Structures are given as C-alpha cells and as structure tokens.
C-alpha cells in the first residue's frame, strides 16, 4: 500500500474512533437533529387551528343558530357564544380571544334579502398574522355556509371574474410539509460546519495538531481524514431525517431517493468545507462554535426561505441570501419532497452548490497551515 493512502486510512480510522467515543459528536449528530426535527415538525406551525372566537348573536333566530353550529363544527374555530358584544371586548383585549364575530339583530332579515354585509368580523390587529387568519377563515366559513344553504356564492355580478384558490402539492397547506425538509438543511449545516470546525479546533486545543504537523502528513491528507468520517455522519443523519419525515411526519417523498441523496451530498460538501475553513482561523472549540453559529447556522435559518420569505426581504438582504448555500438547497429539497424531481429547480441549485464546494475547498487547502506561525 502506498504510504499516502496508508496515512489517509489511519487518519480516517482515528477520526471515526474519536467520533464514536465522543459524546458531544453524538449529541451534535443525533440528538440535536432529532430535537430540531421535532421542534419544526410539531412545535412550530404556521397553521391556525382552533382559533378562539366569540360569536355574538344579538337576536337568536334559527338561521343564526345554524351558523353557530356550522362554525363550531369546523376544525378551525373554538366558539364561545353571547348575546352582547360587550361580553367579549375584555377577552379580546386580553388576548383570550383571537376575534369576535357579530351577527347583528337584522341578520336573518338581511340574509333573506341577500344583502352582503350580514356579519361583522372584529379581529385583534395587534397580532396581524392571526387577525388575517381569522378574517380569511371566517370568509371561507361564511362562503361555504351560504353555499350549503343553497344561497350560492355571494352573487358576483355577471361578467366578473370569480376567484377560487386551489393549493397544489400541499393541499392542506400544512406548514410541517415545508418546515421539516427545511430543517434537514439546518442539521446538515450543524454536522458539516459545526462538528467539523469543532473536531479540528480540538486538535489545536489539545496539542495533537502540533504532533501531526511534525509527521509526514500533508494538508490534503489531513483534510480528507477529517472529511470522510464527518461526511458519512452527515449522510447517516440525513437518512434518519428522511425516515422521520416519511414515517413520523407523514411527509410524502415525491421525488427519487437517489436525487435526494446526491443533492444532499453536494450541500453537505459545502457545509463541510465551511467547517474546515472556519477551523483554519479558530484555534479553540469555543471560537469555532461561535463562528460556525454565525456564518453557517444562522444564515441557513434566516436566508434559506423556509422560515422567512426571501422575496419579501429588502434588496440588500435578498442579495446576501444568494451567497447562503441553504438558499439553493432548501427550495430544491422542498421540491424533491413535495413535487418530485423537477430538474429546472434542482439542476441550477446543484450547479451553484458544486461551484461553492469547489471554491471553498480550494480556499481551505490553501489556507490550512502546515506551520504554527
């Protein structure tokens, strides 16, 4: 066996042993991903179910009763009832209610006349998101109730366009379906960048780097020795995430597993090279984790578009998002999960990630010092 390969193999074995014996790498590789997945899968949701609303029925007619029943039967509302709107004012102010719906005294009369403004929706504007949800869901509930009663959609004047929304790929608009794939990108960043930066800075901290540098080990050999085990660890974590997505969160995988793996491998290479680049400047684990947090994890969280819409950000932030690897990875990942192997999305993303990985590796190999000064 060639001396170079023997050295690389020895470094990989050493690294694998260390990873398998180090509880902190286990935490970063398995516990944190699980935590993140469950946080995004169960904890955070942009869907509103059981909105708390107060229904004011000023005159209890059969029609008003029917509306109350219909509203209570939807999964979206948790309805309290009263005959006086003043009963709900304090609750609304205190945030105990998300909105108040008023059926005025002439509700039945207006309904039978076919008037439009038969109900009044008051929502809590201090939380605009929820306020918009209450209004929107209320309109939907109102429209379907009218339809059921055979009143038809509010009579659109003839010749005007009737808009009906229909959501493809995620028909129930479950936010979990795009949050979970998005969080896989965070996990890859964590393993790729943070763990790699940590294990290299640990060598500096413990003085083993100095001993390695005095042996015939070259820079490229050292880098490969660090990359391979962490790459494998990242891919294992991906497997765990995908399994959790499919079986725990019931997220469909409409694209192929092969494409998912290849695309993730590309992203992981970028993450690993960021980690190695960090380790060329950070000589302590503390600094390495801080830098990894700032340059890898947080931008991945904010600029990948899975939590915050990049398109609605100010121009400078939109420009910044374009250098964040997750900006290319997350949309591709969401596409593979929810739509399928759409090459128009995946191919450009892959090319950018490949370019990033190549550039960062070159920089790392050049920056990794073989000396101590």
């Amino acid at each position, binding site marked *: 066996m060639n001396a170079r390969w023997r*050295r690389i193999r020895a470094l990989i074995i*050493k690294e694998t042993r260390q990873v398998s014996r180090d509880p902190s790498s286990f935490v970063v590789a398995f516990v944190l991903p699980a935590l993140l997945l469950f946080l995004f899968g169960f904890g955070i949701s942009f869907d509103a179910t059981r909105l708390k609303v107060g229904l004011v029925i000023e005159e209890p007619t059969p029609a008003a009763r029917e509306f109350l029943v219909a509203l209570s039967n939807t999964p979206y509302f948790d309805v309290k009832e009263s005959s006086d709107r003043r009963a709900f004012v304090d609750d609304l102010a205190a945030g105990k209610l998300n909105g108040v719906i008023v059926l005025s005294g002439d509700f039945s009369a207006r309904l039978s006349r076919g008037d439009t403004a038969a109900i009044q929706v008051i929502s809590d504007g201090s939380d605009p998101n929820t306020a918009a949800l209450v209004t929107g869901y209320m309109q939907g509930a109102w429209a379907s109730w009218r339809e059921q009663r055979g009143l038809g959609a509010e009579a659109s004047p003839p010749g005007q366009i009737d808009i009906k929304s229909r959501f493809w790929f995620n028909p129930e608009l479950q936010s979990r379906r795009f949050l979970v794939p998005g969080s896989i990108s965070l996990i890859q960043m964590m393993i790729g960048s943070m763990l790699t930066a940590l294990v290299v800075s640990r060598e500096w901290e413990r003085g083993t780097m*100095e001993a390695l540098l*005095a*042996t*015939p080990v070259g820079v490229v050999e050292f880098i490969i020795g660090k990359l391979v085990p962490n790459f494998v660890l990242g891919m294992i974590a991906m497997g765990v995430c995908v399994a959790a997505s499919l079986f725990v969160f019931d997220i469909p995988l409409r694209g192929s597993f092969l494409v998912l793996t290849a695309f993730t491998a590309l992203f992981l290479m970028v993450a690993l090279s960021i980690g190695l680049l960090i380790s060329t400047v950070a000589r302590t684990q503390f600094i390495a984790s801080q830098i990894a947090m700032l340059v890898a994890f947080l931008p991945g969280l904010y600029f990948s578009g899975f939590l915050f819409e990049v398109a609605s950000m100010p121009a400078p932030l939109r420009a910044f998002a374009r250098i964040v690897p997750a900006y290319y990875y997350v949309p591709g990942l969401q596409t593979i999960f929810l739509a399928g192997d759409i090459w128009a999305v995946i191919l450009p993303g892959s090319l950018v990630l490949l370019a990033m990985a190549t550039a960062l590796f070159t920089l790392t190999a050049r920056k990794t010092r073989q000396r101590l000064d």
Partner: protein
Amino acid sequence: MTALVEIDGLVKRFDSGPAAIDGLTTTIKSNQVTGLVGPDGAGKTTLIRLMAALMTPSEGVVKTCGFDTRENPEPIRDVIGYMPQKFGLYEDLTVMENLTLYADLRGVVGQQRKDTFERLLAFTDLARFTNRLAGALSGGMKQKLGLACAMLRSPKLLLLDEPSVGVDPISRRELWRMVYTLISEGVGVVWSTAYLDEAENCAEVVVMNAGRVLYQGDPKAMTATMKGRVFFARGAGAERREGLSRALQNPNIVDGVMQGQSIRLVTAKGAPAPTPDILGVAAPVEIVATAPRFEDAFVALLGGASKRTLAARARKILDEKAAPPVEARGLTRRFGDFTAADHITFRIERGEIFGLLGPNGAGKSTTFKMMCGLLRPSEGAALVDGLDLAKAPSAARARLGYMAQKFSLYGDLSVRQNLEFFAGAYGLSGARRRDAVARVVDAFDLAPHLDANAGGLPLGFKQRLALSAAIMHEPPVLFLDEPTSGVDPLTRREFWATINAMVGRGVTVMVTTHFMDEAEYCDRVALIYRGKAIATGAPEELQTRVRSDALPNPTLEDAFIALVEENDRQRGAAA
C-alpha cells in the same frame, strides 16, 4: 559527532512585542543531549518549533538534518521525532491505537512495526496498558507514551518540549535513563526545560532568558565558573530568614537562598568568602564552602538576586493563640472504594513554613483541598487556629489566605480593580477596603502598575498581585499551591524573600509542591505517597534518614525517591 541542526543568526518575531528569539547561532550535535534551559517565556518552545520546521524564521537560517526549514520542510518530518508539550496524544484513543496511528503516519509497517512496538512497549514498560485510554494514564505514563510515539521511526533527531513538566521526580529519572539509552544508539536529543537542575544532565546547554542566549556550551564549565564562590551558612536557627535578607543587602553577596536549615550564599566575582557577621544573628554561625550548582551560575549570569525585600512593611500579626495555627487530625477522604487521603496527621507551628510534598496523584491535592475547606473529609478534621473547617467554614476561612497555582486574577481588570474586588470578596468595605488596598500597594510596591491590566503584567508582578490579593484580609495563615512552578529563578527568589519576610512577621505558611526547590524553603515537609504521610520532618532529617554508602550526600530529591521506593518495598513485603 555530526551537526544535526545548524542555526545561524536566527531571529523570530511575532506580530507584536519584542523578538521571541533574538539572534541565535548554535549547532546541535548528534549522540548527545542538548538542553534548552530557561524559565517560561524564554523562547524554548519557539526554538524547538523552528527546528521542527513548524515555524519559519523571521531572519537567519535553521538547517535540520541538512534541510533548510524554510525551503525544504517535508524531508525533515521523516527524520525527526517531536514530542510537544502536551505529549501530542489522542486522549480518547488507547495506548495501542495511538501507537498504531503514529506508526501508520510514519510508514512503520509489517515486521518492522511488530519489532518496533515490542521494543518500545518493553522500553517504556507500557505493555500492560495497551488497552487503556491515553487520557486515563498518569502524567509519567503519558510522557512515556508520547516519547514512544515520537520514536517510532528511529529518528535522527528527537525534539522534546518540556518533557518533565507535571511529572514527578521518579518518572523524570526514568525518562532520563531512557533518553541516555537512545543517545547510545546514535540519536541526537534536544530537551527543553525550565528546571535548572536538569541542565547538568546535558552534554551541552543553550541557556536562554527572554529570547536571548545567556550561555551555550558545557553546563559543567558554566557551573565551574562559580567555583569558590558558593558557601553554606549553618547554625542561624530560627533567625535564618532575617539572616538571609540581611546577607543579601551585602554588596559582596549576589545570591542567597534557604536550603532547609542552612543558607546558601553566592559571593560576587572576586569578593572574599563571607564571614558569619554578615548574617547579623546572635547564634554562632559556621560558614563552609560547597560545590556550586548550575542555578548559582544562572542567577549570577542574570546579575544576581534582587536586593529589595517586599512586604517588610506588612503589619506584624500579633495574635498569639494557644491553638496551633494549622492542624490535620487523621484527615481521610474516600472516593468510592479508593482512599485518596488516609489518616493524615500533622501540626504546623506559628511562623513555620510547612510543605506537602509528593508525586502527582499521591493525595496531596486532596489533602490541600480539605485543609482549605474546599473538600469535606470523610473522617478526621482540618483545623485553622483551632477552628474546624468543616464545622465553622467561614470563620476558619477568614483566617487563611489562599494563592492558587494559576494565579486567579481577572486579566481584563486593572491591578487596582483586582485588589478592590478581592477586598470586597473578603467583606472589606469603605475605609477598611481603602486601607487594605493602600497597605498591600505599599507593601508589594504595586503603585507603578495600578492602572495596567493584570493580564498584561510580567510574571513576577502577576505573582505579587496574586499574593497581595490573597493576604488582603491579613490572614495569620497562608496556603500556597505550587506557587513558583515554571517561574524564573530571580522571580522565584523575590517571591520567597517576600514569604520569608511575612513569616518573620508571624504568618504561618503551608505549601504544596513537587518541586524540590520549593521544598528547600520549608522548615518541615510531609511526604505524601499513596494517600499516606510516609515521612514528616525537616528536609535535612529526611536526607539524613536515607544517607548510605551508596548515597553519601543525598539531595532532597534523592531522599524523596529513596523514601518512596522504601515504602513500595515495605508494601510489597507486606502484601
């Protein structure tokens, strides 16, 4: 004998500050040990790294085994063995895994590997521990494993950076024996050390201080320059500390240290032998010439010990309680079924310096922690001025000052802020705090540095500041944990002069250490080994106890080793 490393006009500068190495020209030869000797911060590690081609010179040339370290570093890595300060071991790999890794990296394979492992494991006596994690080895065993990893490829040049730090005298002796074996096989060894007594084991030394070379050549020749200038003054008894500080004021005396009951005095070049009257003590003093040692020459080269004595203005402790100031009564501490300290009993008299001596892991830190009230004894009691540290911890702790091994100062606070903080921590406020700060600033001469950040102070000042912070509340008892390890001899002398002055004012001192130098300053020492106090007495008494035909003039280190070995033998016989 060929030249392994040729260094010519070497200068190494880092971004800021003075040059770490300032103009060095020397040659390192094969088949011998070359010592790099000097205190912490002298530039030893930088020089070793430059020889290993881990750093590039700012100016000048370093050629290791014929290869220029700047132009051609790769071939150097094949012919050197290098053990960095922390031994360069992977603590989460076993002994065998560490060896295998370095064997693979250095291309030692097949039959050659088998033979090498066999030889090295026998040589280092690690064969029984091949499956133990390197992190679970003792300091001495780590050092041997580090050495084994550095020697896998039979290097031409072996670079050892402070191999004896944190290693007890017994392991240190074994390591020297191993290194001499290597020399006979034709290896050139560079051994860097802050312990001046190790210099005399080297064939040649490069003595460094603050980046400059003070001396290079045969250490014995350097020591020999002091011939006829070193004397023992014996018989000063209880007054010997005052005697020493008086003698140091004499212009003919360049250096003086305590050595147990005696005072070691070094005269200026060409000065006459000292007379008993320079000590100014009442008791009859006998002056005898003695053989110089390397440290005498080193201090003389640096211009001699400081003539000032700090803390002379500290207030005299007037409280004369009947209870002994420090007492350990059957102090025992168990961790699970392991007994770290086993019925340790001693009593320290007022105004005495008492040393807890012992190899690493012997139980001296455990004992020390119980004496400070940081650890609760499983059995027995630790008392300060008659107060039990377990029962009345705050009252007892108020009577003691504690200076940790790594000075616990806030590096980002100024000297004044540090002092004010510690005064506050001892519960001093208002006028009492101002008085306390003013008193230590005056006693320790800290005024010129009051507004400088503590982190940037020179070592000697840091040490002074740490000591002043520890005695802010004027405790009658002072505990010191390895106070002068790695400190240069001049700073160490200054520190001990201060301690001596405080002892003269009635302060009682307890020191833990595994440095023989520090032990020499003690009136009495307790030798702790395997959790037991195996010997207690004045340093001379211990030396006398082990005197034999084989060891007619035992040093304190000899006594230490002999007593530990005797204990091992007794244990072996009993078992």
